[in-house]
């Protein structure tokens, strides 16, 4: 489909010709990486590169006027292909400014293409830290941009949806709306007032992933950082090593004889509020985080680790504020581990390994390694964000699907327990089944669909709530009737705010009746 020439000309008038392209050589490369033999998704008709909220607004208005869809993304890891023709991309990479870091009120305001690593580094200089999305420091630091924005710091630093303060939003039909205190006082400190609050509407279940306009600036809550202004990593990539472990920092890994014992330990640690980070990584993820050479080395480390772990486990990271605080937290941790039968994985405690883990977990640079060293499609189930034991049981059930598919030779046997995490000191939890589709599977996409289908069935039949991977009409239509018909409300929101259906919403919900 060819775009209307007047529309393209109008885009160029707004952005300048340098920042608009309908060339197939440009649009082709915006496709998610394409694998031989897998279906080729539609391409964007054009790519735009706005530099400001006003330019985003102008693009959105033109799309509404010319009946062209748009899809915005920031750093753009996944979920960024259009579902059909007649859609342009709003690539937000030129909107990359930190607007403000307010040390006194402990919040930061960013544009969408500030990445997590940048914001965190600036925060640390000021004795502060921010939650990064678990996908990594390479992803947007804007809370509404990066999915649910759960991350390694979520144990003590919550997550994006909840850390979100004031927000600037270009609605699907091109209005600029400033939410929270920004709407009344032109200040960023609060998301819900004084001023209009549309937090639930803009967020939905898992943020609309480009399906409800464009979020152009957002403030988020920051947290205290007791560590150094820059972390003392030496050496050359990828073999960075810590010069020393900062005082009052510690990282341990414990495994447990079964999931119940592990859950017990997680809840006790949460209750005691001693952990800065707690992630129930499995042995394979711990190995991937440490490996620097290749997948064979990763498997070697995993084989060593798997002999040492007795079952599911977690990494726990303490970053204390003083020597006394550190001693207290360390002792509490030891007591809880004793009580619950946790077994330490000694190799990670080696100072060089431990220091490296600590920094990689704060900076969240291991995520690509832990999940990304794959050639075939990744598959899995992204659980919801309900209470920790419920989410644990949900993932435990879903893991049976993974085990079955491994036995059928359709998934890579990584020999691992599911990945779980505790949020806000165990107040909530989240889990994911991560799987690599076998390169020998004949229909790799079918395997990915199958693991989702069976997991969704478990979620509905066993009342585990609405997971955070519910993207698109068919999944909402499946879950809605089982969850207060929320999909009808979501659809009304979509219809009200996007009367022309301009904001491409294949990963959100459409306004179809």
């Amino acid at each position, binding site marked *: 489909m060819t775009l209307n020439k007047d529309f393209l000309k109008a885009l160029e008038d707004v952005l300048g010709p340098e920042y608009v392209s309908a060339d197939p050589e440009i649009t082709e490369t915006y496709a998610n990486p394409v694998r031989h033999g897998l279906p080729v998704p539609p391409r964007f008709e054009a790519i735009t590169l706005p530099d400001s909220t006003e330019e985003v607004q102008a693009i959105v208005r033109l799309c509404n006027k010319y009946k062209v869809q748009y899809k915005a993304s920031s750093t753009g890891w996944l979920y960024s292909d259009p579902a059909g023709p007649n859609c342009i991309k709003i690539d937000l990479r030129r909107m990359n400014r930190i607007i403000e870091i307010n040390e006194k009120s402990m919040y930061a305001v960013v544009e969408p293409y500030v990445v997590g690593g940048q914001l965190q*580094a600036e925060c640390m200089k000021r004795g502060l830290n921010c939650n990064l999305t678990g996908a990594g420091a390479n992803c947007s630091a804007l809370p509404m941009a990066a999915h649910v924005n759960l991350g390694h710091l979520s144990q003590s630093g919550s997550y994006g949806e909840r850390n979100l303060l004031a927000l600037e939003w270009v609605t699907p039909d091109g209005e600029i709306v400033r939410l929270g205190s920004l709407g009344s006082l032109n200040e960023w400190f609060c998301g819900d007032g004084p001023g209009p609050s549309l937090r639930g509407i803009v967020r939905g279940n898992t943020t609309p992933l480009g399906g409800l306009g464009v979020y152009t600036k957002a403030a988020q809550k920051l947290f205290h950082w007791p560590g150094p202004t820059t972390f003392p990593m030496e050496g050359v990539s990828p073999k960075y090593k810590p010069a020393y472990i900062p005082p009052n920092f510690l990282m341990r890994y414990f495994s447990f004889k079964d999931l119940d014992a592990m859950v017990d330990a997680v809840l006790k640690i949460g209750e005691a509020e001693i952990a800065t980070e707690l992630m129930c990584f499995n042995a394979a993820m711990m190995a991937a985080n440490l490996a620097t050479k290749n997948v064979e080395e990763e498997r070697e480390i995993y084989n060593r680790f798997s002999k040492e772990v007795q079952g599911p486990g977690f990494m726990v990271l303490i970053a204390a504020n003083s020597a006394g605080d550190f001693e207290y937290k360390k002792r509490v941790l030891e007591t809880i581990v004793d009580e619950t039968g946790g077994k330490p994985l000694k190799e990670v405690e080696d100072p060089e390994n431990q220091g490296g883990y600590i920094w990689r977990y704060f900076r969240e640079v291991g995520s690509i390694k832990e999940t990304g060293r794959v050639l075939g499609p990744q598959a899995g189930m992204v659980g919801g964000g309900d209470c920790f034991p419920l989410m644990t049981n949900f993932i435990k059930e879903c893991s049976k699907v993974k085990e079955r598919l491994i036995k059928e030779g359709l998934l890579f046997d990584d020999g691992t327990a599911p990945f779980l995490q505790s949020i806000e000191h165990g107040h909530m939890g989240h889990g994911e089944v991560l799987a690599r589709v*076998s390169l020998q599977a004949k229909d790799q996409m079918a395997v990915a669909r199958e693991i989702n289908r069976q997991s969704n069935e478990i979620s509905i039949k066993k009342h585990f709530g609405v997971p955070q991977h519910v993207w698109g009409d068919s999944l909402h239509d499946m879950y809605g009737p089982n969850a207060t018909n929320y999909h009808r409300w979501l659809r009304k929101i979509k219809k009200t705010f996007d009367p022309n259906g301009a904001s491409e919403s294949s990963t959100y919900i459409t306004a179809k009746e």
Partner: protein
Amino acid sequence: MSLEKYRLDMETCRRCSACKFIPFEKVTGYDHVYVCPSITRYEFHSYCGGGRMVMGTALLEKRLTYTDKLLDIIYNCQMCGACDTSCKYSMDMEVIEPINEIRIDCVESGHTLPALDRVVNSLRKQGTMVPGARVKRGDWAEGLHLKNFKKDKVDVIYHVGCQTSYNQQMWKLAQTTARLLQKAGVNFGIGGMDELCCGGRAYQMGYKADFLKQAEANMTAIRESGARTLVTGCAECYFAFKVLYDKHNLKGDVEVLHTSEYFGRLIKEGRLVPSKKVEMEVTYHDPCHLGRQGEPYIHWHGKEIITSIRTFDPPKEYRRGTNGVYEPPRDVLKSIPGLKLVEMDRIKEYAWCCGAGGGVIESNPAFAEWTALERIKEAETTGTKAIVTACPWCIKNFTETISRNGSEMKVYDIVELLAQAI
């Protein structure tokens, strides 16, 4: 087509965008996080390592064909390899190699840029990658009475390279290097008028056949000379002799050293003694082809095994930039009394490129200048007044950019400062 060999590497890309940034463990603030000049300047995803991986698969699948626009994307890249290093912090896949293969395919299928054709024609006809030069290759050595390794028995060959030979501004650098070698009592010789281009830049522009011709001729001459060591002050030549020749099984057992490595060795042996104070504060710019791309080539012969996942037997080692030449130049600088080295934000394996590589300085000088200007501004933030580097191409691009745009920064080769101390 050789690009096919890299299909699975290209398909391994996760679109995580790490290729656009310095390794995130090393991010210390908002500034200087970008590492790829191409995406930073041209903004569209197509211009980054990940975009180029999608482009490569699209070429294999015939979803893209060579057009002027595609050539614009392909050639507006300095081949600096920063994407490769940042990607390989996490991933096991080749990035810069398929990018180079795309260029080779361009040339082999007749899709070239006139500006680069002109350079390669100059190589074919005049034997130099510096077209339009009014001097001859060996003119710089006139009056120095240096041995010629093709006639005289020498232990060490000093290979000067095209940029230093044909740019009169650089002659002082070659002359100083020769004097230091003499002072250390090294039995060395030059190629003089008969020196041949290494072919490395031609390879990176995609002209593989021309590269191979140069490489074979060079190695024949080196073998016949009996010399065991080749020293060069040009990072591009260093990369060609050490890495590319090895990749194509042409290197043999000749030891290839950069002047910073060789002079560092002579200092350690006490054959050169930097004793005079050089009261300066300087910052060091790592040339891409000495730093991250100067890492030795790793040969791998074995079987790719596709089961549930992709593995290799024996396991494949990747060139991740870990073993590039980073410390020897710094060690030389640190050996100079009175000289203080202040590092920039982006150094070593994640250094920002000077802008001159990959044919960009010839095909798009404005982009080369933009890239250099970014680096000069970064150097200015160190508070020093001088950029020291170790490649004549970097020196040329920095010097010309400063003269056109203005800056108080002076540009030196490491050898010049060492000579001041001796």
